[in-house]
């Protein structure tokens, strides 16, 4: 994908566009050949308008004024994108931003679109809308490369499927006569794992209790924004509490408040009966909080440090990593070997940098590290994002094991199947509030999706039986 977009050069092999062989040295070359990329993480400037974002870097095409605006409207109408050129990007929702990204690429004359995990941040309804857009593009004669871990989506939108495993093409499939199961077998060489959980292990002992947590942030203009408002919940030992919500509705900040990276303006956080509202992060970690961060590159790893240093990260004050203020390099290395073995981290050794591992193996290392210090509470934020299907199954297994062993687990995910499958209790977060709750035994992703966009609140449908999911 990076090679196709000119960000990396291939060692060997050729690329042909429209029958002619090409070589890309930079993304600009790729753009000139009509290849455009929509990144997983949007590359938009929030404080600029849609128009400004679109013309940025492509001023030569149609200027920056009226002509550009007309062109944007034209494209938007031709493909049914519904983009308004003069709105500030910060006022747009995730789905709208994605459409702006697509328009940006089309504006530059792309005939081939690469979409990298485009549905990760969308709710089901938005995914359907995106697929309609893609079909529109297709009918206009454009080529779309759709990269996704979600098999169902690939099957519903693609005309042809290529399965890549560990850097090689392992097969192609025709979506019309392929099932998700067959596709998954191609991907992992084994059966499709499902995130379904077992017998309830929920106990009566509260482990994490948040009461009326409120968090505000004053932005540069001096405007106070409420990020978390009146968040109250309890997770008991052996319980998985899932939080659903479109990203950016306060989930990251909620995790940071529990971890102690942010301090709540109001309300209390109690861990295992002790008030930790003002306790520093390190003390909370030592008290038994395991943390699988949503952005492992920013919060979970030192990318250029060797694996064993990454094993020490976050637990430098605990054994086996250190003794009386001094690092115990030998023990830390030995324990890293153990994690690599027990958690099936695929690596040639523990001296390689974390950056050289694949996303799934990085994540397995993090999971192994966090589970190695007898945590009482595990916070898992998007634990299987950007992870291959094999690693995904192993991580799910670990979360189930944690639950069995009596840990309290806070699970935040954009993958609704994962949430419904693993959680004992579900809550929906919208604009910093927990607006709805649901029983994972009966709820469907679509029903959750409507609450995630703020369309529904309170007790969601199908919640006649007792909350807590012991029905399954």
């Amino acid at each position, binding site marked *: 994908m990076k090679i196709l977009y000119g960000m990396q050069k291939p060692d060997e092999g050729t690329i042909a566009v429209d029958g002619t062989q090409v070589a890309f040295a930079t993304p600009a070359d790729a753009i000139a050949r009509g290849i455009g990329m929509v990144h997983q993480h949007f590359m938009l400037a929030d404080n600029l308008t849609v128009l400004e974002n679109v013309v940025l870097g492509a001023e030569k095409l149609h200027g920056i004024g009226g002509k550009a605006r007309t062109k944007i409207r034209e494209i938007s109408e031709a493909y049914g994108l519904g983009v308004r050129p003069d709105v500030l990007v910060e006022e747009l929702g995730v789905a709208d931003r994605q459409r702006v990204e697509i328009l940006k690429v089309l504006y530059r004359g792309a005939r081939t679109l690469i979409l990298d995990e485009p549905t990760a941040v969308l709710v089901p309804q938005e995914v359907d809308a995106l697929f309609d857009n893609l079909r529109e593009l297709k009918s206009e004669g454009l080529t779309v490369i759709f990269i996704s871990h979600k098999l169902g989506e690939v099957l519903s939108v693609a005309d042809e499927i290529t399965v890549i495993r*560990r*850097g090689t093409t392992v097969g192609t499939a025709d979506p019309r006569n392929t099932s998700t199961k067959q596709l998954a077998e191609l991907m992992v060489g084994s059966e499709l794992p499902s995130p379904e959980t077992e017998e309830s292990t929920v106990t009566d002992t509260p482990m994490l209790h948040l009461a009326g947590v409120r968090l505000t942030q004053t932005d540069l203009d001096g405007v106070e924004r409420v990020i978390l408002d009146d968040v109250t919940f309890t997770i008991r030992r052996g319980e998985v509490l899932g939080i659903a919500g479109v990203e950016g509705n306060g989930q990251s900040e909620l995790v940071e408040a529990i*971890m*102690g*990276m942010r301090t709540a303006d109001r309300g209390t956080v109690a861990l295992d009966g002790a008030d930790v509202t003002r306790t*520093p*992060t*390190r*003390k*909370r*970690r030592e008290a038994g909080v395991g*943390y699988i*961060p949503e952005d492992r590159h*920013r*919060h*979970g*790893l*030192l*990318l*250029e*440090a060797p694996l064993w*240093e990454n094993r*020490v*990260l*976050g*637990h*430098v*004050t605990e054994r086996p990593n*250190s003794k009386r*203020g*001094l*690092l115990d*390099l030998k023990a830390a290395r030995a324990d890293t070997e153990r994690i690599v073995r027990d958690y099936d981290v*695929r*690596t*040639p*050794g*523990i*001296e*390689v*940098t974390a*950056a*050289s*591992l694949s996303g799934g193996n990085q994540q397995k290392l993090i999971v192994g590290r966090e589970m190695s210090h007898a945590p009482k509470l595990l916070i898992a934020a998007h634990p299987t994002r950007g992870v291959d299907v094999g690693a995904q199954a192993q991580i799910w297994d670990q979360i189930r094991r944690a639950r069995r062993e009596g840990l309290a687990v806070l699970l935040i995910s954009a993958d609704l199947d994962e949430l419904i499958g693993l959680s004992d209790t579900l809550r929906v977060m919208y604009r910093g509030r927990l607006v709805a709750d649901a029983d994972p035994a009966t709820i469907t992703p679509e029903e959750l999706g409507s609450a995630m966009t703020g369309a529904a609140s309170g007790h969601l449908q199908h919640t006649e039986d007792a909350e807590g999911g012991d029905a399954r």
Partner: protein
Amino acid sequence: MKTLISRGKSRIDKERLILAVAAPLLAIIAALVVTAVIIAATGKDPFAAFSDMVTYGSASDSQVYILNKATTYYLAGVAVAIGFRMNLFNIGVDGQYRLAAFVAAVLGGALTLPGWLSIPLIMLAAMATGALWSAIAGILKVTRGVSEVISTIMLNSIATAIIAYLLQPEQLGQLDDAGTLVSTKPLPKSSYFFTIDVGPAGQVWGFIVIAVLVGIAYWFVLGRTRFGFDLRTVGQSESAAAASGVSVKKMVATSMIISGAVAGLVGMPTLLNDSHQYDNSFPVGLGFTGIAIALLGRNHPVGIALGALLWGFLERTTNHLEFQGYDKEILGVIQGVIVLCVVIAYEVVRRYGLKRQQQRVGAELAAQAAAVRTDKQEVAG
């Protein structure tokens, strides 16, 4: 499979070592080439110049000179490197060491204690002054978000002004008999640091022992303690450090203060071993030399030592070149080119190394997977 893993590991290790040495070597070769071209452009023979540098530089009195210079440079390099490991650019080492040396000189001149008491006191005073001066920048950074680059540059100027004001005959300074030099009151003989007599070649400053100790402490604290791990973590990724439980702000302030304390020692070899007073001719600009040396030595305790020695060597030998009819500006050219080449070479090698490792890991995992597959097939067959 086991052997495969260990073999792969040693190969990666070996390659890392080669890469680590490759960068400075590349830089120095590039610098030599550029310098040769420049000397040739001025119509002189570069190879004669180089051979003169080597012969003169390896003379025993030159070696003593180089060691003494390197002692000072090493301390400056370590002071800067502490900041670098934290992603802090302490340009203020310059002001910190000058102010520290001045305060230490004033205190030393006033003390009439036995040496075993006064020397540690002088050193402590210097470290405390350096620490306090850098703490201003550190506190401004964590409380007000002021960039340490800006604040330390300004603090350098303020230090210059303070010293100029205090080093007047009517303040803390005194005019020498010739009436040309203003200095602080000289240190009593008892406060002189010991020297190692190496015969006709001269005397090696005893402070080199302290410099070595500082180097060992630097290595130990960074590589072997929790504190050092936290410090390196913040330097590599502030967000990961915060998530791992390090208080980033506290760490920034602390490391700035430690960097300043070591900076306080930079002027000590000169004060205690050489000048014994602070006067107008006290060396300036050592803080900037320290930046170059820390870059050259890759913030590594041994690397910094090599960088400091190289700097001393260049200074000694290019001084001599001047008498051979070469332009004295050649020193600045060589030093500048080396620093530039080093920074570029490190970055190139670092990126290459990361990419290369990624490929190797991928290749080895694929090989392992293939090996497992054949094993299975054999079992099945």
